[in-house]
């Protein structure tokens, strides 16, 4: 098997010394973590390794020697000295890594490899360079089919390249010391640039605990008020479940509770989720405040309030025109005149009622809108939900028309379908769930056929009314649906993850990719290991927050079926029990 040496790129220019790292026998690979420089005392090196080993629970060892020959410096003595070190730190195999002639030529020898003594020639060695910082900070996303590698106390049972990531992540203690650190052992590895603004960070850390506690207490108080008996009385839960504002507020409350819960996030996924929730909240509130500021600055609320009543009047007038058109001979269709007149007058009266209701409301509209505008400081989503509710309330007459039309049409369709069975001398057998033949009495047949004839000739009239009002209703539902889509987008977009993917692609790793550097005969093959970042679609898929879920999940075919049979469609989710 080929011997693989994973070597950090930051150590390529290090002075000669000892290679410290981990030997993974199953993969026959050596993961080099750092280079120990001269001079050192062997005992201290061993102590350091033991300390790191205890902290990270990973078997570290001195793997071999590192020899960096500068230009025109034949260091024969050094080579011999390094060979001698093998006697102090025993390890099988003992690596001798060498970089010569200005760094263009690399050579690597593995003493005591392969393990089996009968092997004919020294096995080939492969040098794989990796960026220590990227590997340390990246979070490996294994494909969804595999179970997540368990973090914490479990021994490193991960296989393959995940073992390399695991090793680097576990020996984080080794990299804790920065460039200006003066210790007994001089190491060369990736170093952070030092922690800046540490006082502020410390203060934030200290303050976050009590803040969280206080906020979570306030939130629990709020939810306790919400859960009290007064709000459980009959009409309130029903209305709340229908208003998207209430749903959105509840959703946001859940988010806040999750965010300020005093428990620490256990896994990186949960931590990421918390940060995502935080940023989503922040964006929401920022957008809401921007909207509020804009509304105030332009005095839009007054204009809106002034425009609202005329707009509602205009809509009502248009509807009246539509009804008058329907009461004539619309599109040359053969409508039943008597039924047409009855239906048209009924709907016209309804519009009349609606207009008087709007005019009754008009003095209070500005005040209502003002308070609605204030709610934008709770977040854009709340304001949008309120807008959606206002649209629903303002188009209540369309909803009523739709319900009447749908009920009539539904009655008609079901009557026609059962009378058609009677017409053919069949009936629906409820016990067997099928159509059976049946012998009817003469009077049953007569009345059934009479009704069937009447229903058939009245069907176009009812169907046209239903069609027109359904189209109006669908328009309103589409507007509300697009508003809800926008709300869901703001609610569920993992903003932090996407930003992380944009700015630090290596943080979210889907895997690795290799690039062949160069190769000379007789020298080890050199590869560069790079982080393969997660694709944006997978980032969004993995980290998207659960949406509010007040929208119905209807497939298109089911929707068309419902529309055809005249069943009511709602923009909110039906209760499961009701459908059964």
């Amino acid at each position, binding site marked *: 098997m080929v011997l693989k040496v994973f070597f950090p790129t930051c150590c390529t220019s290090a002075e000669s010394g000892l290679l410290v790292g981990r030997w993974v026998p199953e993969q026959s690979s050596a993961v080099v973590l750092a280079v120990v420089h001269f001079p050192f005392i062997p005992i201290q090196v061993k102590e350091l390794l033991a300390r790191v080993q205890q902290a990270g629970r990973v078997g570290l060892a001195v793997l071999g020697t590192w020899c960096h020959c500068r230009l025109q410096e034949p260091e024969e003595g050094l080579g011999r000295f390094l060979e001698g070190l093998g006697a102090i730190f025993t390890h099988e195999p003992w690596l001798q890594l060498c970089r010569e002639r200005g760094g263009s030529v690399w050579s690597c020898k593995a003493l005591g490899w392969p393990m089996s003594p009968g092997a004919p020639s020294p096995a080939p060695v492969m040098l794989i360079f990796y960026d220590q910082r990227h590997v340390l900070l990246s979070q490996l996303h294994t494909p969804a089919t595999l179970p997540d590698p368990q973090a914490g106390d479990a021994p490193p049972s991960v296989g393959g390249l995940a073992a390399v990531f695991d090793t680097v992540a576990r020996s984080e203690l080794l990299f804790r010391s920065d460039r200006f650190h003066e210790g007994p052992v001089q190491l060369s590895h990736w170093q952070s640039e030092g922690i800046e603004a540490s006082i502020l960070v410390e203060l934030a850390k200290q303050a976050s605990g009590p803040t969280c506690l206080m906020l979570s207490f306030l939130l629990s108080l709020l939810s306790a008020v919400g859960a009290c008996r007064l709000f459980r009385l009959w009409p309130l839960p029903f209305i709340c479940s229908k208003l998207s504002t209430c749903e959105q507020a509840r959703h946001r409350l859940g988010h806040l509770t999750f965010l300020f819960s005093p428990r620490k996030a256990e896994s990186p996924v949960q931590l990421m989720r918390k940060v995502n929730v935080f940023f989503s909240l922040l964006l929401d509130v920022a957008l809401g405040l921007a909207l509020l500021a804009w509304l105030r600055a332009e005095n839009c609320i007054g204009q809106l309030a002034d425009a609202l009543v005329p707009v509602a009047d205009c809509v009502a007038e248009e509807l009246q025109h539509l009804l008058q058109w329907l009461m004539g*001979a619309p599109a040359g269709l*053969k*409508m*039943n*005149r*008597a039924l047409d007149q009855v239906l048209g007058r009924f709907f016209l009266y309804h519009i009349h009622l609606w207009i008087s209701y709007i005019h009754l409301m008009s003095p209070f509209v500005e005040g209502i809108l003002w308070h609605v505008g204030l709610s934008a400081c709770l977040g854009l989503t709340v304001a949008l939900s309120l807008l959606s509710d206002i649209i629903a309330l303002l188009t209540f007459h369309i909803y009523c028309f739709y319900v009447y039309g749908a009920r009539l049409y539904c009655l008609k369709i079901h009557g026609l379908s059962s009378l058609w069975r*009677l*017409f*053919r*001398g069949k009936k629906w057998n409820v016990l067997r769930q099928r159509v059976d033949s049946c*012998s*009817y*009495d*003469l*009077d049953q*047949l*007569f*009345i*059934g*056929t*009479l009704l*069937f*004839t*009447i229903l058939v*000739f*009245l069907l176009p009239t009812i169907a046209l009314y239903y069609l027109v009002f359904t189209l109006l209703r669908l328009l309103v539902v589409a507007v509300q649906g697009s508003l809800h889509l926008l709300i869901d987008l703001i609610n569920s977009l993992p903003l932090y993850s996407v930003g992380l993917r944009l700015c630090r692609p290596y943080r979210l790793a889907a895997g690795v990719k290799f690039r062949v550097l160069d190769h000379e005969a007789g020298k080890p093959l050199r590869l560069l290991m790079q982080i393969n970042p997660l694709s944006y679609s997978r980032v969004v898929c993995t980290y998207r927050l659960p949406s509010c879920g007040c929208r119905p999940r209807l497939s298109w075919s089911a929707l068309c079926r419902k529309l055809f049979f005249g069943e009511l469609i709602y923009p909110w989710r039906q209760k499961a029990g009701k459908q059964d």
Partner: protein
Amino acid sequence: MCDQPVRNTNEVRWQKVLYKRQPFPDNYVDQRFLEELRKNIYARKYQYWAVVFESSVVIQQLCSVCVFVVIWWYMDEGLLAPLWLFGTGLASSLIGYILFDFIDGGKGRKKSGRTRWADLKSALVFITFTYGFSPVLKTLTESVSTDTIYAMSVFMLLGHLIFFDYGANAAIVSSTLSLNMAIFASVCLASRLPRSLHAFIMVTFAIQIFALWPMLQKKLKACTPRSYVGVTLLFAFSALGGLLSISGVGAVLFALLLVSVSFLCPFYLIRLQLFKENIHGPWDEAEIKEDLSRFLS
């Protein structure tokens, strides 16, 4: 190579089975291959006058449709007073009702277990619903063009004639569908009449001629065949007379149709019977001869 075993085992009897390996070539046809073939085992010999008698059911139904259309035409033209038609229809219904019980001496009524109260109730239902719906019927097809209504009625009446139960045992026969189509046609035609009273009386008449009259016919045919022939002749001539008063050409054509149905078609049937070649054999589907319904219940 192949002939050898055939010659050696010539004595082996050929069997008409596929599951056994037999020493014959694949395309071998034995003498006994078609020996189980039978021809015309269920064919019947018809008597000419018996067939003519049976065809009278078709004549009756054709005449019913003709009479209905003629009456509607008279009503539409305003030549027939609706109350007069109503009175005549009521009287003939009463006579038919008495005859219905009188012919078999009340045996059929006892067998079906239907009381007079139920009959009265049905009659009331007919009258009430028709009367109640007649204003609706009047305005029902106002906006639909007359040609559409005529086409629909012709289509429905044809359907009525096709699906009517003439006594044949076929899958297409459905007396329910036939009656429903006739009622549909009558409602369509009635909605064209000038007033709602006309519509009411037309629909009532349709029930009498399409629903009640065939029931009486059936009983007449079963009990007194001679009087049935007379009634049929009378009915056919009255239908012809009615049609003659509207259009002479129509009457001639209708008469030709009646003659061909009652006399030519039976003749042709008996002639064609000679060419019948119906083969039967072991390949026929299995038929369960015994009545198994007693096991099922």
